[in-house]
């Protein structure tokens, strides 16, 4: 027995057939009990699916979403402030070192008040700078500077990792 194709039945159900084709299908449905049964069950499913109700999400969902939004979209700003404050401390330390070295050099060259040849001054200044840097990076101080920079690198690394993670999450993996 030749049954009506499923595609035709579905199109008939969705009213997607032209008038002539619809009339033909109606005629065939009248004469075939098997097709009529197939179509009636299909129609029943269509009607029942139209009545399906939406699932209800647990209470408080909206509040949780809004709380998450407040948290997630404020946190980056707070992180920026923290990074800025760390950067400011580093800059202050660097400026301090430069000021300290400059003060040491200037103090060593203060007694000479008469006119000094420029080249001699430059030589002394650069010589003093090298000496100060050598003292600063001596084995005693080097460990302290190394520790400070390591700490800085670790903190920067942590925030870089967090930033990457955050970006990845927002990109939706």
């Amino acid at each position: 027995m030749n049954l009506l194709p499923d595609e035709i039945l579905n199109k008939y159900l969705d009213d997607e057939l032209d008038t002539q084709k619809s009339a033909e299908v109606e005629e065939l449905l009248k004469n075939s009990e098997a097709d009529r049964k197939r179509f009636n069950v299909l129609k029943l499913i269509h009607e029942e699916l139209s009545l399906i109700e939406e699932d209800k999400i647990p209470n408080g969902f909206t509040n949780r979403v809004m709380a998450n939004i407040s948290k997630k979209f404020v946190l980056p700003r707070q992180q920026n402030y923290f990074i800025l404050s760390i950067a400011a401390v580093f800059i202050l330390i660097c400026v301090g070192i430069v000021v300290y070295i400059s003060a040491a050099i200037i103090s060593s060259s203060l007694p000479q008040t008469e006119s000094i040849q420029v080249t001699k001054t430059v030589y002394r200044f650069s010589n003093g700078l090298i000496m100060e840097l050598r003292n600063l990076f001596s084995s005693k101080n080097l460990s302290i500077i190394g520790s400070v920079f390591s700490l800085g690198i670790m903190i920067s690394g942590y925030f870089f990792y967090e930033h990457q993670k955050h970006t990845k999450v927002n990109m939706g993996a």
Partner: protein
Amino acid sequence: MKKLSDQQIIESVRDGNQSDYSIIVDRYKNKAFSLLNRMLRNEQDAEETLQDCFLKAYKSLNSFKGEAKFSTWFYRIVYNTALTKLSSKKRKIENEMSSVDEHFDLKSDYDYNVSERKDMSEFINELVNKLPERHSAIISLFYLDEMSYEEISKVLDISISNVKVMLHRSRNALRNLIIEKNLVKELI
């Protein structure tokens, strides 16, 4: 009070009224939850994923140009996030869902017990959850969200004809199970 359109609410959120976003959340949460429930088949996963979706949508609000309806844009986020979630759960969705030519048969997966007779809508709803994820998503978008074929094709990023094929195939599978199990008299 006049109901604000999605676009009006989005403009307000963009202008800095963050709390107005809760109107959007309230408007779409249950329907999107229904879609995720059908795809993920786990309420907790569905709720968590939906939270992520609303956060993603909020973060990307500036990229929403209003060329498509907000609902289409948002459901696209929901659908893609669900697919990501499914793949992260190591379900073999590529094999299961990649082709619209797939053929599936509900009768081997579902054993209806007449003694546990339920309300017909509930029964058919249960059957929908047995369909492959993408097919149950189409059923949800078409019947629950009352989306057109064109909107569904944009959400799922497939052609309109493929949407129709998949919708028809889903209905046929449900019908075949009902006829196969001789449930017609039970149900009608």
